[in-house]
């Protein structure tokens, strides 16, 4: 739902999204230790697989984006992980788009990355229950942020598409609810089962500290 296909957005919006994504990716890749690549890849694969699960919410079902969870667990690596996930979707299933890769990466990874970076240090000190509540906030806000950015991309593209933005935004409601509930419960699960997931430095990036 968050993947805008080719052929909807205007050229300036596509270029802006592409530039923003390229800059963010360059920054994120520079922070990534080469030795951490296999670890980041395996976690990216895990989030890719998890996002294929259909979660029933009310009368519909949603595929989660898990950007909030990614931001909390893998920090900066969220950007390349989402980018690679989008590429895989394009090549494996033909979904999404080529020209919209940048916009979609920013829309999906951006809010989760910002929230993850801001909240991950707080998460380490909390009990599983409180960590779950905070993570629910991060997950819900990240999904709402994605919805907002998708609507923004439509508004910026053309006047006629702008009128559809509020309705598009409304379709994000089930996703926001599902994302908040599942992210919260998953983080409280991880806090109980594997608390070191939320150690001071996000797990896969900490690989660089190895002697």
């Amino acid at each position, binding site marked *: 739902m968050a993947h805008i296909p*080719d052929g909807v957005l205007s050229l300036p919006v596509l270029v802006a999204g592409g530039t923003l994504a390229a800059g963010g990716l360059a920054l994120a890749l520079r922070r990534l230790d080469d030795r951490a690549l296999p670890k980041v890849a395996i976690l990216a*694969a*895990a989030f890719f697989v*998890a996002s294929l699960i259909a979660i029933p919410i009310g009368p519909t079902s949603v595929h989660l984006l898990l950007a909030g969870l990614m931001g909390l667990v893998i920090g900066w690596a969220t950007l390349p992980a989402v*980018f690679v996930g989008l*590429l895989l979707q394009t090549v494996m299933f033909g979904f999404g788009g080529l020209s919209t890769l940048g916009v979609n990466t920013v829309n999906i990874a951006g809010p989760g990355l910002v929230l993850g970076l801001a909240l991950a240090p707080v998460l380490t000190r909390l009990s599983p229950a409180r960590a779950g509540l905070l993570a629910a906030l991060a997950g819900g806000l990240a999904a709402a942020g994605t919805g907002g950015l998708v609507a923004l991309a439509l508004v910026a593209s053309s006047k006629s598409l702008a009128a*559809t933005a509020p309705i598009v935004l409304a379709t994000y409601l089930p996703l926001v609810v599902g994302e908040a509930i599942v992210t919260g419960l*998953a983080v409280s699960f991880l806090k109980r089962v594997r608390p070191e997931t939320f150690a001071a430095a996000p797990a896969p990036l900490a*690989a660089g500290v190895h002697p």
Partner: protein
Amino acid sequence: MSDASLAPDAAPDRLDRLAPRARLLIAAIAIVAAILTGSLPGLAALLAIAAFLALTATADPRPLVARLAHVEGFLVVALAILPFTTPGTPVVAIGPLAASAEGLRQALTIALRVNACILIVYTFVGALGPVRFARAGGELGLPPRLVALFNLTYRHVELIRGEYLRLAEAMRARAFVPRSRWHTWRSYANLIGMIVVRALDRAERVDEAMRCRAYAGRIAARVAPPPLRRHDRLALAAALALAALVVGLDRLLA
């Protein structure tokens, strides 16, 4: 690797003679042309060309039809409400709502353009399969780290999916039926948490195994790709010429 379950490696098609990076470039040219084309006849022409290429290139058109039948949810919403939210001369009225001619035209424009792009991506990119796609991306200047990350991720998707399927089967064996209720959400959250835990463990093991083999984070230097052959250059030139023709006529006649 075997990837039969999630995405069977692309079947050989009639475009296989083209270099993968030439195919990526042709797709890019065609998508830019579709974005720059604004008139209905221009877009219809592009869609016809894309459909012709897709049908001649693929041996089995059935997955293509399935792909076209699936439209992004938000696109359905956008196309359904565009005629009613765009001001203009009313054509059809449903109760208090009136669909304007301009709105219908807008919706049709987007539908034509999106479908043309789907056909192009399906034919020139999707049929490449992930491995050749990543190589072509690297040859076109994608950073080596990103290419390595893509390949490593693709390598593990099927393995992690195996973990997921085993966990899901264990849930089914305990009579789990997904519904819209708290128990389902908690179960799925635990499932996702468990996938992450197992991925972290696997990442640790793979990291150790790779370092046992003296992996120090170096990615093999990029090998210069062979130059594009004559038919690659011809195909690129034809794509450029066709794109220029459609966009030119579109601008001229608009």
